[in-house]
């Protein structure tokens, strides 16, 4: 549908939040807890934190939780009764205060979880999720959303985008049907659009490269030793994958207590050595260099090729979270500048 613009005053915005809270819906917003900002379910509007650039963990856990039950089973003698995922128990959830790059992260997830076969569990959680994002008025040196086709005011992925427009007003853009439905419930809180250009209120992040260029470069230097040099300091943990809004890799593990138990899906990371280890002991991605190459190639080459969506929204979380300061934007810039390699 066509995005419709409205304005909403700061106080109406708080009222909108209060209305959602009092309607008993599950509302998740950025909350500051011992010097980290994380998306948490909130009970009152005062808990919301808004003076941060970005949360540590992304919002992907609202559609792709770090651990979820795919199915449960009960063994009685030789019989097994399996009970399916409780689709109708997935609560309606409102994500309040996400950034455009958080919302942009859902596109790659949607792509993977609906590549040929549809992951009904993921889709149900996505269907129940309404995303109300806030444009970015500030950024830090890890952000590179503009290079990934996004931007501080990008609407992709959000159902409604609020852009603070100074002196107590905000531009409210209604982007999707869900956004429309929300708008219709609370039209009284919105006024006509002021028609002001929202760019002026947004922070400026200069674009360094674009996804097509990156795709060509990384494919060209597949055999290069740049991967080894860049991944020299990578310690093989899972921090970058777990904070990333676009990483969808998961592991399936069973958990049992006596004759009952459940099959769980949980986050996994291509950085771990165990990720591709064969029982025979052979490991196609034995070294950290191959694992780092896989992470970059999968996001910038394989996903565009197979499901034509780039696996990165340029949020910079992986660079901030990495203990060894593996700055993705910096690494991509290095690859961009590489000419023919004298191997």
């Amino acid at each position, binding site marked *: 549908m066509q995005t419709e613009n409205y304005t909403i005053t700061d106080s109406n915005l708080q009222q909108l939040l209060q209305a959602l809270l009092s309607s008993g819906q599950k509302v998740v917003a950025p909350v500051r807890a011992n010097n980290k900002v994380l998306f948490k379910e909130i009970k009152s509007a005062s808990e919301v934190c808004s003076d941060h650039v970005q949360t540590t963990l992304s919002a992907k856990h609202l559609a792709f939780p770090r651990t979820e039950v795919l199915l449960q089973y009960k063994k009685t003698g030789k019989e097994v009764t399996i009970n399916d995922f409780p689709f109708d128990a997935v609560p309606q959830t409102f994500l309040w205060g996400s950034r455009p790059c958080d919302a942009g992260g859902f596109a790659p997830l949607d792509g993977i979880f609906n590549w040929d076969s549809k992951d009904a569990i993921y889709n149900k959680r996505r269907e129940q999720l309404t995303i109300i994002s806030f444009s970015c008025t500030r950024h830090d040196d890890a952000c590179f959303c503009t290079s990934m086709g996004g931007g501080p005011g990008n609407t992709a992925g959000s159902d409604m985008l609020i852009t603070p427009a100074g002196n107590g007003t905000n531009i409210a853009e209604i982007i999707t049907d869900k956004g429309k439905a929300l708008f219709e419930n609370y039209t009284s809180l919105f006024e006509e659009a002021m028609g002001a250009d929202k760019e002026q209120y947004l922070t400026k992040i200069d674009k360094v490269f674009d996804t097509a260029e990156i795709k060509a470069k990384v494919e060209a230097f597949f055999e290069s030793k740049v991967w080894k040099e860049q991944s020299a300091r990578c310690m093989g943990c899972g921090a970058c994958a777990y904070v990333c809004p676009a990483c969808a890799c998961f592991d399936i593990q069973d958990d049992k207590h006596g*004759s009952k138990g459940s099959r769980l899906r949980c986050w996994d990371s291509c950085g771990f050595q165990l990720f591709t280890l064969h029982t025979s*002991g052979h490991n196609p991605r034995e070294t950290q260099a191959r694992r780092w190459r896989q992470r970059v190639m999968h996001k910038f080459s394989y996903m565009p090729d197979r499901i034509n969506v780039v696996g990165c929204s340029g949020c910079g979380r992986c660079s901030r979270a990495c203990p060894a300061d593996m700055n993705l934007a910096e690494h991509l810039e290095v690859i961009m500048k590489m000419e023919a390699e004298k191997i």
Partner: protein
Amino acid sequence: MARIGVFICHCGENIGGTVDCNKVAKSAESFDGVVFSTDYKYMCSDPGQTLIKQAIAEHKLTGVVVGACSPRMHEPTFRKTCSEAGVNGYMCEMANLREHCSWVHEKGEATTNKATDLVRMLVGKVKNNKPLSPIKVPVSKTALVIGGGIAGIQTSLDIANAGHKVVLIEKQPSIGGHMSQLSETFPTLDCSQCILTPRMVEVAQHPNIELITYAELESLDGFIGNFKARIRKKAKSIDEKLCTGCGMCTTKCPTKKIPGEFNEKLGNRTAIYVPFPQAVPNKPVIDKNNCTYYQKGKCRICEKFCPTQAIRFDQPDEIVERSIGAVVVATGFEVKGTDFFPEYGYGKYADVITGLQFERLASASGPTLGEIRRPSDGKIPEKIVFLACAGSRDPAKGIKYCSKICCMYTAKHAMLYKHKVHHGDAYVFYMDIRAAGKMYDEFTRRAIEEDEVKYIRGRVSRIYEKNGKLIVKGADTLLGAMPVEVEADMVVLATASVAHNDAADLAQKLHVSYDENNFFVEAHPKLKPVETNTAGIFLAGACQSPRDIPETVAMASGAASKILGLFSQNELTREPVVAVVNRAAPPLFSTCAGCFMCQSVCPYQAIEKEEIKNRAGETIKTVAKVNPGLCQGCGTCVAFCRSKSIDIQGFSNEQMVEEVFALLNND
């Protein structure tokens, strides 16, 4: 292939009495992996074991859980049954429904539920058991016998006569132990020297026995079939090869006033001495604590007179090492001194003596050449009072047990006294007469009836000296606890037999458990009296608990027969419960991270370093490796290993975790 059979035993009424065995068997059928479950009155009986064998054949079982008594009792039995029926012995586990359930809980549903839980626990374990085969270990066919008393002598002779080597070590300068101190022995009153000395000589001359006297065990390492014994030969200051035992040095030695241990301090000996005339080896030893040369650096008279110059003052202690297949502990016992009894004079009265001292007085080779004379003034006592149970059966004194032999030797002492001093009066204060052996009761009746020894049933409360006489105040419980007072010339206390004061140290050196009285603990009071819990270490004689000579000799032969069984095969099969460091396909080879901190955890130094080399011979990785011969299966390294690279067969991580899961998830 988890096809498990569950067999619940009623054990007569022992389990059936409080546990509903049928219900346990019924609920076991529903356990995951169980294909057959039944219960039977006596599972360990022949029909019971045949029932198991038939079930294995009929249901093609791959694992067996027997719910019966303690695995410490019948685990070997049922494991043998299973292996005879084609199921590897180690696929059979026992649930302890008797000692840990039926005997200790009231009859009721809770007890039956607990029994079901215990069975489910072991079914969980068996599903993760792996077939194991015993480990073959070479046996060095030499036995080490510690202690040269009658027990040590008998064991050594039995083993040596069967053609195996024996190393007999004795702490004192000569073998013979307490028996050599006795005058005559009950019930036949034959003289102990006459029956013991030939055996001592036989030991000394036996080609298979290496006799090392005046020596103690320094340390024992290794395990059954492969012990390394380090023996400390205390310096005798004599060159045994040169010394002919002529005894010249002992007659010339100026310090003659040392109270002799052999005569229980009633007679004296010289600094360089032979403990008693029939000593084997009949060679002297210098007592460094009393020899003037060692104390003050002068004298050396014995060196001057020795015809063969055999004196070696600078001889050091020597540690010799022997590889040993099995060990027999025959260290015997001690008797409490008179100083242990404040109510009997704290050992102040010279004429209050112990039974062993009376033996020395009665012995022809004793300080009084067999005449019963008072140690204080040498007169022949007219009236002697013998006290049975002096210290024994007296919890207040910390000795709860009965010393077993004192009733018999007290009767003997009284009889010997009456034979030597016909007109003398002998009184015996006793609680009960324990004379249960062959011809034993007839012996005590003879003392009472023929030799008119006056037996008074009652305890003695106090003994004190009054103008040369010993006033013995007691009571006669057969006459309504009437107080009795006897003026005696001498009192003999039949003091309690106790363990040597260094028995606990020896037990810790051998890793053998000992009870609160420091007697060594046998593997099982009824079924394994001569064995200990440590494989390869056996017990003989009074070191296990007080016993008389016939029982000691029988037990000594028992221990010898156990060792002969062990030495009958060239290889020893050992429990395969050993730790194993995992191995994996290249390029990993093993998950061991090579930190080798497990080496200092292992008490048996069983963990070695193994270098994994590639074809070109370069070392790729150095990982740990467990020597199955040395590993005793304690599992401390398994719980220590941070990368879970070591696991122990029979108690593996998976088995223990599944056991706990099965126990706690009983939904």
